[in-house]
């Protein structure tokens, strides 16, 4: 069967571009020949539109519709009238209108939510669906509530025109990050300033890294903002890292012992001589502890709190047993006299005002007079608080008695009123000292004596800015093993730090931890847990018997660059025995972090967090 005729006189002309078609088709009936017009009005109520020929009308019905009829109405209307239909829209119309509807819906959706957010809910997360590309990480979501988007996107609070125009300006998000985050250096500079040898980026790129390049926000509450992988590091480093054992460069020379110890402690001497040889294990020594310490590192090192450093235990736990008597034995002498001539010690002369010490003979007299009156302030160019610290517990009345006694050429023998004074082992003393000289001296009560420490610190502060024979002699005396409190015996290196960093001087009395400013992220704890606290240390830490550590300390640590650590450098092979692809994770971030120590500016300013990448 032939479905349709295509000849012009046998079929009607289809107009698929018109948006209406005959309503009869809707009910699967035969459509009228004329079909609806472009306005959707039915054209099928008549079969043709008669035309006027001369004085009468003729039918125009085509052949394929039955041919012309005989009688159009006299008024020119078609005589074959039918009831009209309700034309219906075609598919093309609906497709176009659904498209328009979707476009309008999207525009309304975008603008209604955006307008609502900007106009009514600016500082909230309400209705931000069309502006917010995703929820913030848990860390940031907790404190952005009040200011919402404008915490980081400052242009969010602008009026509409400024807001729109900011699309054509640079958005400095790093500045927003550094509003809260505090780094050791410029946050934009890679590793906050450290230039790597295998860097493949230009200096301009190195100095202009945006935070958002590595930390992608709006990835949901569970997103790890600090997550990075080997590829991230390879972006800038030439050594494309895939395997620690084969791809990681060898560790640097002297790693990790480049930093000298603030406290002179000769591991080898202690372990191989002091702790075991009988000549050292005298009555003044803690024999039991020495025995333990010779066997185990954990006797002295606090492995329970091991992190990057395994800090030694406190002085009282590990040093006091053997060394406390040495501290108490060595006094700080301020003045000596043979009852004819009084002489101020170099440390006293160093701290006293230069106008007084120009004539040293006269200076002793002035000194005695002043301390007898309790007017120490006239002697020193120091603040009242500093003078109070220096002379804490000093008795000027007794000083008067001393001065009188010496002036009359007699030794001073203090009257002992009670038992307490006779048993006095530390504090200010007048009279005969341990060398048999008449003197004013101070005996420290033990380790970290506050008065002795004040005298030493003041001396060292002065020695940084001034230099004369008194100061040099005083410092020399201080650093001697038998110097005041024997401080110099162990602390000489730490207290001679002036060559290390002139701008930020600090007294290194205590144990100096490894600097946390670097990119190395290492913790002893898991390694100790894995390898054991007793024998585990030897796996990495081996003595270097060739190292001349003693010379550095004998030279009182004056030149830090002479320092040779008694331990051998740790080599990469020590780590790669376990850190291989098949065993323990060995990604860049296992041992390195991008940022140095970082902290926060807002609210929680004081606490640095160590885990930053």
């Amino acid at each position, binding site marked *: *069967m*032939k*479905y*349709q005729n295509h000849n012009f006189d046998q*079929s009607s002309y*289809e107009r*698929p571009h018109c948006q209406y*078609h005959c309503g*009869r*088709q809707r009910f*699967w*009936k*035969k*459509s009228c020949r004329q079909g609806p017009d472009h306005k959707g009005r039915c054209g099928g109520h008549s079969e043709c539109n008669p035309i006027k020929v001369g004085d009468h009308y003729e039918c125009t019905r085509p052949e394929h519709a039955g041919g012309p009829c005989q009688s159009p109405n006299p008024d020119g209307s078609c005589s074959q009238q039918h009831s009209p239909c309700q034309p219906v829209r*075609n*598919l093309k119309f*609906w*497709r176009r209108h*659904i*498209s328009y*509807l*979707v*476009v309008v*819906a*999207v*525009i309304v*959706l*975008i603008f209604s939510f955006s307008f609502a957010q900007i106009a009514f809910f600016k500082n909230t997360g309400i209705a931000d*669906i*069309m*502006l*917010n*590309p*995703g*929820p913030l990480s848990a860390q940031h979501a907790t404190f952005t509530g009040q200011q919402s*988007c404008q915490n980081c*996107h400052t*242009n*969010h609070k602008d009026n509409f025109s400024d*807001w*729109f125009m*900011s*699309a*054509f300006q640079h*958005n400095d*998000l790093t500045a927003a990050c550094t509003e809260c985050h505090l780094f050791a250096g410029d946050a934009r500079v890679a590793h906050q300033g450290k230039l790597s040898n295998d860097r493949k*980026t230009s200096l301009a*790129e190195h100095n202009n*890294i945006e935070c*958002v*390049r*590595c930390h992608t926000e*709006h*990835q*949901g509450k569970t*997103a790890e903002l600090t997550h990075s992988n080997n*590829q991230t590091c*390879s*972006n*800038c480093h030439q050594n494309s890292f895939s395997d620690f054992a084969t791809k990681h460069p060898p560790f640097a020379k002297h790693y990790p012992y480049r930093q000298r110890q603030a406290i002179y402690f000769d591991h080898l001497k202690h372990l191989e001589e002091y702790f075991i040889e009988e000549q050292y294990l005298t009555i003044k020594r803690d024999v039991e502890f020495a025995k333990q310490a010779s066997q185990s590192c954990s006797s002295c090192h606090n492995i329970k709190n091991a992190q990057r450093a395994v800090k030694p235990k406190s002085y009282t736990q590990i040093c006091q047993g053997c060394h406390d008597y040495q501290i108490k034995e060595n006094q700080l002498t301020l003045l000596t006299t043979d009852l004819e001539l009084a002489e101020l010690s170099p440390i006293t002369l160093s701290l006293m005002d230069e106008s007084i010490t120009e004539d040293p003979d006269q200076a002793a007299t002035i000194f005695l007079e002043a301390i007898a009156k309790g007017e120490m302030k006239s002697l020193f160019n120091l603040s009242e608080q500093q003078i109070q610290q220096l002379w804490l517990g000093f008795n000027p009345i007794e000083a008067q008695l001393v001065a009188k006694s010496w002036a009359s050429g007699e030794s001073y023998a203090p009257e002992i009123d009670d038992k307490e004074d006779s048993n006095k082992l530390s504090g200010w003393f007048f009279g005969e000292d341990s060398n048999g000289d008449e003197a004013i001296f101070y005996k420290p009560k033990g380790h970290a004596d506050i008065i002795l420490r004040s005298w030493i610190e003041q001396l060292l502060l002065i020695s940084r800015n001034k230099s004369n024979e008194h100061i040099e002699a005083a410092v020399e005396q201080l650093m001697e093993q038998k110097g005041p409190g024997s401080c110099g015996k162990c602390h000489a290196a730490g207290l001679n730090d002036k060559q290390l960093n002139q701008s930020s001087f600090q007294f290194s009395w205590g144990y100096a931890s490894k600097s946390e400013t670097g990119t190395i992220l290492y913790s002893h704890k898991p390694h100790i847990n894995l390898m054991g606290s007793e024998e585990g240390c030897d796996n990495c830490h081996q003595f270097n018997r060739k190292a001349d550590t003693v010379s550095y300390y004998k030279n009182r640590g004056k030149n830090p660059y002479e320092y040779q650590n008694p331990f051998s450098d740790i080599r990469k092979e020590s780590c790669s025995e376990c850190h291989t692809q098949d065993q323990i994770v060995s990604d860049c971030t296992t041992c390195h972090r991008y940022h140095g120590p970082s902290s926060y500016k807002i609210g929680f300013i004081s606490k640095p967090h160590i885990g930053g990448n």
Partner: protein
Amino acid sequence: MQEITRLKRLRTNILISACGLLILFFIFISTIEQKNSLGIAEIWSGYGLLVLLLLLALFNIKKRLSILPLLGTGYGWHQMHIISGMIAIAIYFLHVESWWPPSGYERWIAACFYLAVISGISGLIIQTYYPKRLTEIEEEIIFERIPDAVAEVREKAMHEVESTVAITRSETLLRFYTESLDHYFRRPQFLFSHLIASQSADFWIKKHFQPIRHFCNKDELESLQKLEVLAKTKNYLDQQYAYQLIMKLWLFIHVPSVLALLLFVFWHLLLVNIYAL
């Protein structure tokens, strides 16, 4: 002549594919390069994707401006639309790096993109498969004329039944028509079966016409044969209707989803420039 056309089309396909792959390679390398230098890797893939989306949208405009010969042939544009679409999928994943964004308006973009892609691929399959099926039917018919043709077949069938009943005075054929065929002839049937190339309609015709033969006299049998021919004709019309309808319907999803996608993409572009760049 056909051989020349085939060669021309092959050349067009190779040229467009080569250009497309070159663009994809360039964007891929640029993105990796940006990533390797901690640059904004999304810049190249983002703007590349935008240009591709606009190019894809231009296809619709070109179809309306077929009078302009300088813009290339319709076939070339169609092939470019297909290849650009494929490349856009690759660049989209290069840009987004995830199957589904965590939330926010980017999910709307993703939803529109997936809808456009799925409808586009479906459309490609439809436009490739069903025209071939159409040519397998003995005669083609314009979609808009199918209702008329169905009505004509129905009228013929009814006329056949009426004339036979008038001659034979038997109700067998009349009852058969009213109880079994009337519904079938009333409108297109078995549309889904036709789309999946099932033979359900043929089977239905055989199943209904076979048993009734035993109850027909000679005149009725003749009429029954004519009715069966008309039923098969109607079946062909149904096939035509099903194929042509599906070839039009996929655009009901593709075009609106693409328009929505473009709007969301422009919004995304604006927001990214305001808040991130």
